[in-house]
C-alpha cells in the first residue's frame, strides 16, 4: 500500500473535511486501490504530448465573451436569502480576527 493514514488525514485537512477515524480507515484502502489503478497511465509515454485542459475549437475569438460592465444582478436581500446566518446585510461567520 502506497498511501498511509497520515496522507489521508493531510488530504482531508487540505480539503476542509473533518473525517472521522472510521472514515479515514474506510477511505484508505479505497483511495489506495484507485490510485494503484490510475497508475496504468504511466504505461503511456506522454513526453511529447500537450495536456488537454479544455475542449477548444479553432476559429475567431469567442463572441460569447461579453464586455465587462457593472450591472445589477441580485439585490442584497436576494443574495442573502440562502445564508445560514446573516447580520446587518452581511454573511455572518465565526470571528476570524483576534482582538488585541
Amino acid at each position, binding site marked *: 500500500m502506497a498511501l498511509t493514514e497520515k496522507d489521508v488525514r493531510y488530504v482531508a485537512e487540505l*480539503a476542509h473535511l473533518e473525517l472521522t477515524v472510521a472514515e479515514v480507515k474506510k477511505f484508505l484502502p*479505497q483511495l489506495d486501490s484507485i490510485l494503484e489503478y*490510475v497508475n*496504468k*497511465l504511466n504505461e503511456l509515454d506522454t513526453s511529447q504530448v500537450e*495536456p488537454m485542459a479544455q475542449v477548444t475549437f479553432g476559429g475567431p475569438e469567442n463572441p460569447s465573451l461579453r464586455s465587462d460592465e457593472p450591472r445589477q444582478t441580485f439585490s442584497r436581500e436576494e443574495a442573502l436569502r440562502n445564508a445560514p446566518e446573516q447580520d446587518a446585510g452581511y*454573511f455572518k461567520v465565526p470571528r476570524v480576527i483576534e482582538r488585541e
Partner: protein
Amino acid sequence: MELTSLTIGEIRNLLTQKKVSAEELTRGHFERIASKDTDIRAYLTLCPERALEQARRIDRLIAAGEPLPALAGVPTAVKDVIVTRGVRTTCSSRILENYIPTYDATAVERLEAAGACILGKTNCDEFAMGSSTENSGFFPTRNPHDLERVPGGSSGGSAAAVAAGLATVALGSDTGGSIRQPAALCGVAGMMGTYGRVSRFGLVAFASSLDHIGPFGRTVRDVALMLRTVAGRDPYDSAAAPAPVPDYESELDQGVSGLKVGVPREYFAGLSPQIGDNIQKGIALLEKLGTKAVPISLPHTDYAIASYYLIATAEASSNLARFDGVRYGFRSPEYSDLREMYEKTRDRGFGVEVKRRIMLGTYALSSGYYDAYYLKAQKVRTLIARDFLDAFKEVDVILAPTSPVPAFKLGERLDDPLQMYLADIYTVNASLAGIPGISVPCGKTRGDPRLPVGMQVLARHFDEPRLLRVAHAFEKAGGFEID
C-alpha cells in the same frame, strides 16, 4: 385518452385540435406521479403551481388562436443539479437541502420560454457523482422496468421519469455518462451534445471541463426538439459555443444510406453477450438501411477511466470548495472557530461518495502529485481525443454499447467504488474528447427479467445533425425493439 405516453408532436396536435388542454395534460401527469412515483421515486420536489400557471398560459394562447411555441404544454422534468428560481434545488445533497435558487438556469429559462411545463426536480446521485442514483442524500430511485434494480445514474430520476410516463421529456446532466447510461438502463433516449453546445449556466458545477446539460425523451425526435431549444450561445457561459444551432428536426428524415459507421474493436473485446448480441443486431440493422460498418480502433480506450476519474475529481474538489456553510446551504451548528465550521459543515453535509471524490481530487492536485496525476491525466486526455479525430477521418459516426451491463440490483455495487467507476468505460471517452453522443434503446436482454439495452451513436464535434439522423433512422426501422 392516455396522456402520459405522448410525444411532443402528438401533444402539439392534440392541443391545436383542442382535444385536450395543457392544464388537463399537466394534471394528468401529476395524477400519474401521485400513483406511480411512490414506488419509483423519480422526483425529489414537485412544482405544480409553476407547471399549472404555464399550462394555463398555453391554454390562453390556444383560445386566442395565437401561434404555439415549440414545446407548448410539454410536461418536463428537470434534474435537481439544475437551478430553478424559487424551487428548491438540492443536487440530491443534504448540504443543499433547503437551497432556493434566486435564478433559473439558461436551459430552464429557454424551455419555459418555449412553452414547456416544468413538473418538478428529479433525484440523482449527489452532485451527479455516481452511476446508480443510490448516492442520493435522500433516497434511491428505482428502475421502472424492475423496481429491485437501479435506474442508472447520475440522472436516474430524469431517465426513470421519462421511462415511466411521469414526464414526456427531461433535462439531465452528463459529465462522464450521466445522461447516456441511465437512458440505456431505463430504455429511453438520452443525449449529450458537443461540449459547449448547451449553456451550463445554472448547472451546479461538478467538473467544468466535462459538464453538459442534455435531454431525455422517448423518441429521437423529442430529443432533437429539446436540444434545439436549449442549445446555443449564452453570455452567462463563455464556453457555450457561438456556432449557430441547426434545425435538427428538419434533417431527421434525410436517411443514412452511404454513411460509414465505425465499430471500435476496443468496445467489444470482453463485452458480455447479453449486451453485445443486441449491439451487433443494431449494427446489422443499420447496414440494412444502407450504411457501411467499418472496423476501427480507438487505441487509448483502456486508459479513459483512469484519465477521467483524475480530471473529474480534481475539478470537483475545486468546484465543491464553495460549499462551506457561509453563503448558502447547511452549516454545522457545532464549532468553535471558522476552520472547524468548514470542516464539520462539509463532513456532515456531504455524502460518502462526494467526500471520496473530493479526497481523490485534492490528492491529485496536491503539491508533489500534480504532475504525476492531474497533468498526466490531461496528457492522456489529448491522446484519447486524438483517437476520435483520427477515427472520424475514416467514418461518419461511431456505434458502441452504452453500458457493459444492464440495470443491476440496488446495493449490488455500492461497496466497491472502483468497480462502479469501471462501469463507465464506454461513456467517459466521448466526454473526455468533447464529442456528442446519444444512447438509444436497442432491444432487451434475454432471460428474466428482460432489461433494456442501450446503444450509443457518437459523432464529430458539432455533428449532432448526423448523429440524430442515424439514431432516428435506427428508431424508425424498429431498432428500439430489436429482438
